[in-house]
């Protein structure tokens, strides 16, 4: 039971965190919707979009770091191989 309560607490915590995110982020007014997409779903997707966007940004940033170092080492190797150019 203790374990369950703990899991519940963490789920509730995640819920509150998401709610705070929702309040701070807002969501886009959807164009092209002939049905009402519902504010609940739009806020949820606003959060998912923010999380996914952050994921993409982090991945991009990580990629840049990798390229930076890989680029340097490649350049260094290239220099070693062909010092003349």
């Amino acid at each position, binding site marked *: 039971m203790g374990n*369950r309560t703990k899991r519940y607490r963490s789920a509730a915590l995640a819920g509150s965190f998401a709610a705070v995110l929702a309040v701070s982020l*807002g969501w886009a007014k*959807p164009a092209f919707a002939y049905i009402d997409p519902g*504010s*609940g779903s739009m806020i*949820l*997707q606003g959060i998912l979009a923010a*999380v996914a*966007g952050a994921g993409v940004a982090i991945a991009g940033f990580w990629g840049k770091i990798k390229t930076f170092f890989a680029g340097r080492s490649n350049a260094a190797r290239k220099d070693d191989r062909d010092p003349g150019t």
Partner: protein
Amino acid sequence: MRPTPLAASFRDPSGHVYDIDGRILRTITERAAPDYAFVRQSGLFDRLVSRGWCIAATEVEPAAFGLDMAPVVRAVEHPRLPFVSYPYEWPFALLKAAALHHLDVHLEALDAGVTLSDASAYNIQFIGPRPVFIDLLSFRRYREGEFWLGHRQFCEQFLNPLLLQALFGVPHNAWFRGALEGIPTPDLARLLRWHHKLSWRMLAHVALPARFQAWADARQSAGETPGGRSRRMPLPGYRGMLRQLRRWIAGLEPAGGARSIWEDYERTQGYDDEERARKTRFVADFVSAIRPAMLWDLGCNAGAYAELALQSGAGHVVGFDSDQGALARAYRRALEKDLRFLPLVLDGANPSPDQGWNAQERPGLHSRGPADAVLALAFAHHLAFGRNLPLAQVVAWIVRLAPRGVIEFVEKSDPTVRRMLRLREDVFDDYGERTFAEALSGVARIVRSETVSATGRRLYWYDRAGDSG
């Protein structure tokens, strides 16, 4: 005079559906034409049609059908469906198949740069047990970064009704029939217990959207307008939502296994082999003589006689039963044997009514008939004893559903009836074969009848063709 669209075709301004002399036509308006052209050119549509995922649509000249009124710019013709059914008539397995089909179509569409503008369960129909997507104009060009606008509708019309049965063992049919747009997310969220919310999926698709909606409604009624910030959903995130729902729904099963007293009925009922052979021969003779394009099987149980009817020359069979367990077996049979058999939920004492907007949007069972033939085997006594319906009325109702049919009469002394009456007083003085035969010959001609069991079960083949009624 201009044709009028079907009563259910009013929501989407992209076009409307017409039934003109039995041909199903769909108009495409000016505003939808660019998206329609894009979807056609993407090759997606042809691919879905060739796989049987989507109903065919052949371009026709709007003027040829009197549909050349502004803002209509194009028209297509669809093949006519053998039967139109609604999500509140689908047993769990069919609603689940429809949900998975919707997600599969959407995922396939996204790969082609196309998305779906809605997620209505009414856009899925069944040909036999196979789901088919019928709304051509739901497809439109995907715009980079857009949200899934049909998410709420998908949850209310597919996910929530499935969860009702998967979490609580409560079939969705009665609720869905009363609320044609499905089960509202805030209503389902109210039923969830705390341990349900430990699942991320339940939080994401039920509990949080309900909470957010309440929050936004409160802000709105306080005069604020929440939202407005522009966000973009990366395509992998969009696909991720669809895939997550697909995995979740694929694993859902009815709680409690939907077993029932009638699930083993076909194995335990009171027929020996010879009697069963007699009944089989009678039904096969009837169907092969009539060769109905559409046969309705009332009280279809697990579909043994539906299968027999198809083997005997019926084009399509729609089976009706009120028992979810039997229907689950019927669906498995249809799928495994690839039968043109669609098993649906029906309470004979309360068949689907004409309902929805203007009481016409979703036609009731009677409005979708008559069928070419009907089977009512071991059915009438359930209404007579189980629902206290006068036998003559039951017979007249069955005959109204189709011009020709076979109805089985079951004696009061039959073990099944004795079991139904074991806790009740026998108030059915009028119930008997004479009442049955008189009622039937009052509304139709009895072509043939035969006693098929030692307990006195008797089959009646009737024909009212040529009569006015």
